[in-house]
C-alpha cells in the first residue's frame, strides 16, 4: 500500500475516464489518478490525443461525402411537395 497504490490506475480504467474528463465529470480522486497515469503512460496519452482528433472531425464527414440521391427519388420528393 501507500501513495502509489492509492493513485494507481490501469490503462483500461484510464481510457474509460478520459470520456468522463471530456464532459467534466471526473471525481476529484479520479482527476488526480488520471493526471498521474497520463504522465507515465505514453499509450494512454496517445489514445487521448488520437481520439480527440477523430471525434473532433467526425461531424464534418458529410461535407467530404460525394453520395447523392437518385434523380428518380428527387422527382418523387418534388411530387410530394404539392398541394
Amino acid at each position: 500500500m501507500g501513495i502509489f497504490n492509492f493513485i494507481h490506475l490501469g490503462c483500461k480504467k484510464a481510457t474509460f475516464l478520459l470520456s468522463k474528463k471530456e464532459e467534466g465529470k471526473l471525481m476529484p480522486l479520479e482527476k488526480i489518478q488520471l493526471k498521474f497515469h497520463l504522465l507515465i503512460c505514453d499509450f494512454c496519452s496517445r489514445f487521448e490525443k488520437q481520439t480527440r482528433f477523430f471525434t473532433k472531425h467526425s461531424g464534418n464527414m458529410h461535407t467530404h461525402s460525394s453520395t447523392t440521391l437518385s434523380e428518380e427519388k428527387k422527382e418523387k420528393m418534388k411530387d410530394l411537395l404539392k398541394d
Partner: protein
Amino acid sequence: MEENLLAFKPDKWVGNYADALYAYTITRVKDVQQAEDIVQNTFLSAWKARDTYKGQASEKNWLYAICKNKIIDHFRKHAADMVNLSSKEEDMYFDQGDHWTGDAAPKAWSVHFQQPVESKEFYAILDQCKQKLKDIQQAVFVMKYMEDTDSEEICKVLGITTSNYWVLIHRAKLHLRKCLEKNWIGIH
C-alpha cells in the same frame, strides 16, 4: 429576417438541398432506405409548416434543424432494437491487469493534430470504421460527437443508464481508434 423570408423558396428545396441533406443523414444513419425516408420526411414536415416560417433562421438552417430532429427521432424509434446490453464483448484491448495487450496499444500517428483534415480518404475510412460498430455504439457516437447532444439527452433517447453510456462511448472509441490505425495509411 426579411432577407430570409425573401429567400424562402419551398418549390426549390429538393433541387437545392436534397443531396446535402442526404449526405448529412447517411453519415449519421447508415441505412440507405431510412436515410432517404428521413430526408423526404424533412421536406414534408417543412412543407406542412411553411406558413409558420418567420425567417428567424435561414431557410437552410431551418431545414437542417428539422432534419436533425428527425435523426434523433430515428434513434429513439429504433432504440429498443439496438439495445442489447447483456451481450458482453470480449476484451481484446486489455489484459487481466488492465494494461494494453501488445497489439492493441496505440502506436504513434504522424498527423498534424491541430490542423483540419482535408483528406477525403480519412473521412471515408472513418465512416467505414463507424459502420462496423454495433448499432447502439454507433447511435451513441453519432449523437455525442456528430450531433453534439447532451449525455443526459442521449440516455433518455436510447433508454440507457449513465453507466451504460460511459461503457458504450469507451468501446466505440477503442474500436474506432484501432480501425483507423489499421486502415488509414495517412498516419503511417
